[in-house]
């Protein structure tokens, strides 16, 4: 599968219709999931209507982690098989993952305001997400700082894998740290105590985020492949 797609020409042909298809599916799922979550799902017993922000917050949290795992996989492919498309995929995914992490942080802060009475609480989950956000920023900044794209891709892949090893350690230490300082955690929504009636809209929204990621990542990849082609043909024309 990977080696089949690794040919850039084949990738361009396939992604030419896969990207818009993902966009259409994402739009349909958003159109279904957003009203379902915002109007047609039950309010929560303790938090009331504010719980509805969960449908924006939780999928963003899931996929910001999921995208990082995807980047880790792409980085491994890049380092082991040295294929340029894997670098392009990881690079294309990073800003989307960062935005999802950012959405998660902002909605978490908004959700926290009425529940905790403050815009920011050093809750374990939010703190881990903040660290993930910084990891994304570092990854993106490293790509931007190195001019030679081939080298940038491989170095960023090493950084990405190191970050992947670091993530569970961060999770463990932040959890340890937050139980030490005992904050009030309201983010049980991500855990097991979600009412079944909430699962439908939540999973629909999660699907919408996933296809949105697919559409954006594929079009990012297409853009950077096309840019490389132009640069290459210019260089050969000039030489």
């Amino acid at each position, binding site marked *: 599968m990977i080696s089949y797609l690794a040919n850039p020409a084949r990738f361009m042909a396939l992604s030419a219709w896969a990207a818009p298809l993902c966009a259409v599916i994402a739009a349909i799922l958003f159109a279904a999931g957003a009203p379902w979550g915002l109007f047609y799902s039950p309010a929560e017993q303790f938090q009331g209507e504010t719980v509805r922000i969960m449908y924006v917050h939780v999928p963003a949290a899931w996929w910001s982690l999921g995208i990082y795992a995807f980047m880790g996989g792409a980085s491994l492919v890049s*380092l082991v098989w040295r294929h340029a498309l894997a670098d392009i995929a990881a690079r294309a995914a990073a800003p989307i993952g960062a935005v999802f992490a950012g959405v998660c942080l902002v909605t978490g802060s908004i959700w926290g305001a009425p529940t905790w009475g403050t815009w920011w609480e050093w809750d374990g989950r939010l703190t881990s997400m903040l*660290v*993930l956000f*910084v*990891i994304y*920023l*570092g990854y993106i*900044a*490293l790509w931007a*700082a*190195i001019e030679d794209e081939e*080298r940038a891709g*491989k*170095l*960023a892949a*090493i*950084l990405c*894998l*190191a*970050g992947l*090893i*670091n993530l569970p*350690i*961060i999770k*463990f*230490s*932040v959890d*340890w*740290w937050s139980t*030490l300082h005992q904050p009030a955690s309201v983010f049980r929504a991500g855990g097991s105590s979600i009412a079944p009636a909430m699962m439908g809209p939540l999973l629909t929204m999660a699907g919408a985020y996933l296809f949105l990621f697919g559409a954006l990542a594929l079009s990012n990849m297409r853009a950077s492949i096309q840019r490389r082609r132009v640069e290459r043909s210019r260089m050969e024309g000039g030489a």
Partner: protein
Amino acid sequence: MNPFLATFRRDFALHWAGGGVLAPLGYFLGATLLVPLAMGPERTLLAAAGPPLIWIAAALAVLATLERVFQADLEDGSLDQMLLSPAPLEALVLAKGAALWIAVGVPIVLAGAPAAVALQAPPERVAAIVASLGLGLAAFIGAGLVGAAVTAGVKRGGVLIALIVVPFFAPPIIFGSAVASGDDIDAALSVLAGCALGAVALGPIAAAAALRLQAE
């Protein structure tokens, strides 16, 4: 002398010769001095919140030394020579990290004792704080080598290193600060030792992989 010792000795000597030891130490002490100036001299307040701030000072001092660790070797051609040694590059990177820990880290660890006392840490906790700094700086340096290696070719990469390395510094800071504030010291020390071990074992492998790419 074997390649590991030769590299260790050279880097250790270069840290001392270039004033590379005094600057981070001064930075550490200076940052520690700023804490009571910012918080006020109130002894109970300092005792409650001051000691963990040693960790901020230590992290900043290490960050300041990371930029040149590999960048200089890349620029002056020393990296090419390291690649031609019979010893694996990973071992040479470990030697450089060890030299950094002994030359720059140990003075900071020792300065940690008076710094802790000045920030009103209870005297019976000072020994644990010094030990935790030793482990924590090893963890910082192990992870820092990776950040330094991937940014070795970037001019003025200091800020970039800081951004890249901060997430790796988070776990040691958490457990180190727990020791400094006296929370569950035994557990925190053993996790800190785990962090140090992991960073020292894995850091040189990732850093060496990055350096091979830098030499291309």
